[in-house]
């Protein structure tokens, strides 16, 4: 069936955004990523009105939900294009994540996510402490794709702001819970309090949005306990 792919486009950070529709002949069970790949593979791409169009820029990696590259807004909701499906409505609307600096079309610069983790000194300075009971939560903490979906929905996060957002809190858990060096753990804990705990408005918007299905709010509460109350 024909499905209209409506894309918010912008050639550069400075240029004006515009909307462009494309016709995609596929199945409702195709992923958004499948549609974007098909459109970009055409040797001459034309929009729904028949006008020539440049290939659509978007970040793409594994196309299997394991790398987080293709996060974008699909019908207004942040998700991975490779895990979002076109559905039966006959159209889908694609926009770049709005919280990060735009690069081009659906590509944004999510570098702030990684810079924040560095600022929080999230690493182990000693051998990881073992605790088999915490395996599953630590595993979940390490499963974060750093895609940015939880930051997109967060009312407290902005790329230029001082609040780290849920991705950093989820990552902090495995390091706070495994760090054997008390001084470094305290250092991480202080940074955590400053740029996460004090800024989180507990809207819990991040709970249901994670495309990797990570229990985000549980990890946050565990990180809070470790950083603020020194309880693992």
């Amino acid at each position, binding site marked *: 069936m024909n499905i209209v792919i409506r894309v918010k486009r912008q050639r550069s950070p400075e240029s004006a955004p515009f909307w462009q529709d494309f016709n995609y002949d596929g199945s409702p069970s195709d992923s958004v990523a499948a549609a974007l790949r098909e459109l970009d593979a055409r040797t001459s791409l034309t929009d729904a009105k028949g006008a020539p169009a440049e290939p659509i820029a978007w970040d793409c990696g594994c196309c299997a939900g394991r*790398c987080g590259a293709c996060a974008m807004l699909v019908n207004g909701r942040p998700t991975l294009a490779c895990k979002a499906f076109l559905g039966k409505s006959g159209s889908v609307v694609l926009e770049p994540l709005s919280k990060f600096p735009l690069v081009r079309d659906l590509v944004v610069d999510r570098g702030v996510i990684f810079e924040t983790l560095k600022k929080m000194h999230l*690493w182990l300075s000693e*051998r*990881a402490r073992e605790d088999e009971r915490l395996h599953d939560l630590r595993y979940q903490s*390490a499963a974060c794709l750093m895609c940015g979906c939880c930051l997109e929905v967060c009312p407290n996060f902005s790329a230029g702001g001082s609040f780290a957002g849920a991705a950093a809190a989820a990552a902090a858990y495995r390091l706070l819970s495994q760090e054997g060096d008390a001084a470094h753990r305290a250092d991480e804990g202080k940074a955590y309090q400053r740029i996460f705990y004090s800024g989180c408005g507990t809207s819990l918007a991040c709970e249901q949005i994670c495309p990797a*299905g990570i229990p985000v709010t549980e990890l946050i509460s565990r990180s809070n306990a470790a950083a603020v109350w020194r309880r693992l």
Partner: protein
Amino acid sequence: MAVTAVAKMAKKRILIIGAGLAGLAAALETAQNGGEAVLVSTQPSERAQSNMAEGGINAALNTKGEDDSPAQHAQDTFRAGCGLADYGALSAMTEAAPGIVRRLYAMGAQFNMAGSDIDLRSFGGQKKKRTAFAQSSTGKQVMTALIDAARRCEAEGSITRLAHHEFVTLLLGGDACGGAAVRERFGGPLVTIPSDAVIMACGGPHGLFPDSTGSLANTGEAAAELFRLGLPFADLEFIQYHPTTFSASGKRHLVSEAARGEGGRLFCLREGQKWYFMEEKYPELGNLMPRDITAREIFAALREGPVFLDLTELPAAVMERKLRGVVDTCLTYMRLDPRCEPIPVEPGLHYFMGGIRADSAHCTGITNLYAAGECCSFYHGANRLGGNSLLGALYGGALAARTALAEAERPANTALPAPAEPTSPAALQTVRTVTRACLGVVRDRTTMENGLDRLDGLAGSVPLLARAMLKSALAREESRGAHYRSDFPDRDDARFRANSAVYADGTEIRVTFEPVKEAQNA
């Protein structure tokens, strides 16, 4: 354009192309040994193909009372590689493997545990339980541990990341490499980075094929550029088809070998009855024969009808604690619950055993240029064992960095080579059509020669590398490991117990065969 080298600094600067597992291992080893690592990648490490590795990492930890040893791990690897791997190099790797896995554990990687020790699962081509794993996303969990460790080096200045930068070409001075030119993906200028060494950790050239389980970001362009510059490649005809994959939403998805390691059974229908063909034909290893053999058996069975992987008999706890990723993948992309229904599977392109030709210290044909991980890999021979790719990337990346730190020294003057002709989108489409038709599970001369004709005259380095793959596959007139020729179905040790080497001489491609490094104890 001439580029003058900056004044030599006290620290050796190692430029690493690719921030997946091999690149990260190289960067950490460089930083820990007093060097300065510059890590170039088109996307952050979190996006690298290494994160997709599912089943595990092999190491003879010998925690299951099976009398396992690194020597047996080396023998299994060598046997699966059909005699073409560098036995000395891979023995050193299997010897190091238990230490590597224990170090990952100490770095916080969340391996599944059995009591107080790291759990091990069965994997293809190995009789003993030797594969450490983190549920069914081992690559992701191992990557996270390395990324956490690298973050500290970044904060301390011993690793510098150039995120969203792509490799363009090498800086060359005579026969030696003195850095690389890279370009910012978000629209920046060409930047030249002088360095004492360059380590290629750019992954396999999956982009030369239309339909791979690998990452779409692994375009093969970096390898193609090096090939254009005349760098010799080796064993390009050996391309691994994973036995159990499926296609959905225009992408090939993997059903991890862990599914069979945990007891999954392959069957097809014969006269209406389930036929467990692997168990019947290969009573000893059954569903866990090496990937080349299993893929060929499934390929043959598919001519008669669908082939299924049955996980429905596995205990719920195994599905939940060890195969959750497999369940999620099937539910998301096939809308099929493998706990209730068998999974229809077929072989799919998965891994490149060959690549940049390197010796056991990871030196390539250009001085100061090294290669590690899937882009080179001389550890696997004609067919790779599951669980050895993460190991090869970690061990190889670190070893390449140690070699580079010990011997590399940048040449006094370097220059950029003449730029490559671009590969047009239409040419890339043709390449992918040809590789699909010619370099599948079963190959033959006529199809490959026709494919070469179609590639003739296509401009750009990607078609050139594709031609090298075809020429290598044509030259090997035998069947061995992942390379199966219907016109030469037998193994021919007299002529071909040798590694193929291929290089570009302008637009000409030359293939030779070189004797395998002497295999002691094999």
